């Protein structure tokens, strides 16, 4: 039978199928962080269960960490305790932890791929919905709840019903100023926030084939924003080139053997999907969100739609936007370039390409937060840090930061923030904050201009 990429990877991990019920799925890699793991460790403790495969778990501290003065003790007592708890749990169970300040520390979905922990054909879980990011390598990767974290601790497996398959193809070439973030925001604006619920999504077609690994991660990252448990892109030469030589990537004969396997993973020609969408790259423009869910996105040239339903009206009221109006020239107070969606080196290169030689608008507070220590180092090595600093930007230390505003990086009530993160929910970036999702290029332009501008008029060529 002809199989999809998803089928091949999933089926290779099924330990057992319960008649009329779920399957027992084997998990190769389990990533954990400080916020969704403590209660799972507690569960083990309460039941007196050991961790089954500690060497298949990797931990990082990212959600609840400060982005300044990381060498000092964490100020907030609860956060400090949560981080302490992670350290103690990892020590107790023999789990590798890349804690605050470690050269491998970073947002879980940035550090694992860049270390080569994430590999094609793997099954990867983490107590975080954006685990879908790792699907960019042709892995099955998805977010789980804390009870499931405990299940994986206990058995290295999960009980799951196999999701249905969905394919989204985008053909053609992207227009100038259109970044991977715009592609995924466009897709979500077209299909809606629950089109993917119950599905695993494969992204296919020229646009994704031509995309860098960083771009693919941005796309797969936001699969959850259309409800899909995960997103995947078939591994190809771009994937192998990215992986080769990474700290935890296979080497020598092992690499050759795995490479051969990875090459067998792409979807067979003629394999059937339960649902398919197709889009044309030429229809995609730089995107912005205007509401309080990621599906409420428009092209930069479009006005906010007109609709009458309570949820829509409530959303616009929260944002203080009017139906039918344009977002162009909207003054902006904050700019956040960061999060597991857009905090990789390529994102900072895109931002720097616009910022170079210009100055940040004085009324805008801009936070540039690298996804990991490695990205931070690279920003410095490539001279981007200097570009940012000369333009009046502040480069912070790695972490989730204002993406979820669990630490002190909060957008004040009523303020507008153009953010490269993935969620514009009410209060996501701090109580009362108003989030507009966009690409790093758009965010950089807004930081310089102090208002929303049409980026297509300002960039020389396709990035």
């Amino acid at each position, binding site marked *: 039978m002809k199989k999809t990429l998803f089928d091949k990877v999933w089926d290779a991990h099924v330990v057992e199928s*319960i008649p009329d019920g779920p399957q027992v799925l*084997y998990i190769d890699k389990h990533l954990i962080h400080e916020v969704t793991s403590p209660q799972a460790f507690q569960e083990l403790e309460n039941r007196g269960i050991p961790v089954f495969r500690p060497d298949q778990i990797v931990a990082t501290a990212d959600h609840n960490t400060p982005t300044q003065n990381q060498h000092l003790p964490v100020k907030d007592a609860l956060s400090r305790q949560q981080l302490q708890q992670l350290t103690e749990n990892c020590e107790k169970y023999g789990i590798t932890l890349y804690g605050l300040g470690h050269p491998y520390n970073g947002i879980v979905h940035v550090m694992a791929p860049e270390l080569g922990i994430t590999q094609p054909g793997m099954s990867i879980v983490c107590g975080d919905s954006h685990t879908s990011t790792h699907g960019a390598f042709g892995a099955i990767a998805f977010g789980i*709840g804390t009870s499931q974290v405990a299940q994986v601790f206990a058995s290295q497996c999960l009980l799951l019903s196999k999701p249905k398959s969905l394919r989204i193809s985008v053909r053609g070439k992207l227009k100038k100023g259109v970044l991977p973030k715009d592609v995924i925001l466009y897709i979500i604006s077209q299909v809606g926030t629950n089109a993917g619920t119950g599905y695993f999504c494969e992204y296919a077609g020229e646009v994704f084939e031509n995309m860098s690994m960083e771009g693919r991660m941005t796309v797969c990252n936001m699969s959850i924003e259309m409800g899909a448990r995960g997103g995947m892109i078939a591994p190809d030469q771009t994937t192998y080139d990215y992986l080769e030589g990474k700290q935890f990537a296979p080497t020598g004969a092992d690499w050759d053997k795995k490479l051969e396997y990875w090459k067998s993973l792409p979807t067979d020609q003629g394999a059937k999907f339960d649902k398919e969408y197709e889009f044309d790259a030429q229809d995609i423009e730089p995107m912005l969100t205007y509401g309080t869910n990621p599906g409420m996105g428009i092209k930069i040239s479009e006005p906010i739609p007109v609709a009458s339903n309570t949820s829509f009206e409530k959303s616009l009221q929260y944002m203080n936007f009017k139906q039918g109006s344009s977002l162009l020239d909207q003054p902006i107070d904050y700019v956040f370039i960061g999060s597991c969606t857009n905090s990789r080196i390529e994102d900072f290169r895109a931002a720097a390409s616009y910022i170079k030689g210009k100055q940040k608008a004085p009324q805008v507070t801009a936070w540039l937060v690298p996804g990991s220590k490695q990205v931070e180092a690279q920003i410095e090595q490539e001279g981007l840090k200097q570009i940012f600093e000369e333009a009046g930007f502040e480069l912070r230390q790695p972490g989730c930061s204002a993406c979820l505003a669990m630490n002190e990086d909060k957008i004040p009530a009523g303020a507008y923030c153009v953010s490269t993160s993935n969620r514009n929910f009410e209060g996501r970036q701090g109580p009362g904050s108003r989030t507009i999702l966009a690409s790093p290029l758009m965010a950089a332009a807004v930081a310089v201009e102090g208002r929303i501008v049409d980026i297509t008029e300002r960039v020389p060529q396709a990035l």
Partner: protein
Amino acid sequence: MEKFERLTSRAIPLPIENIDTDQIIPARFLKATTRAGFGDNAFRDWRFDKEGKPVKDFVLNDPTYQGEILVAGNNFGCGSSREHAAWALADYGFKVIVSSFFADIFKGNALNNGLLPVQVTPDFLKVLMDTIQRQPDIRLVVDLEQQHIKVEGTSFKEDFDIDVYKKTCMLNGYDDIDYLLSKKEKIAAFEKAGSKL
């Protein structure tokens, strides 16, 4: 996990779509390292204003509506995978959430915590919502064994689906860990047989 068989209760209507887990429990309350006490901050920013005073017209602050069943708009529980959302709702006192659609991860989390997600058709949800708003005193009957939900004393009723395995777990109060632990030998054999990785 607590057993769930059948519940008769009044219900609280929340006719908003796409309620995400950031609304159910905002991130700043995720610093606790135990499962207890999240109910105090359930729907925090809808329930309380900046000064911490209850927002009068939010339904959970309206004494007209009571009960252990929350009836909510389409696509409930989307967004972050935080199980804290399910803990917050259960801790607040809900035993059943009714909606026309649930986000995947939330649904799994709810089931793992003895909180039953009941998915009904959009039409049924609309009528149910209107009925509760017109007659806040009516009670709903949610029967897991029979897989139906109805307005008590009426013929207004709908069947709902649930995975057979999950149903058995809910009815008996078992959870997945018990099952997985019983499979350890098989799992070890699977590892030996050699995954390709």
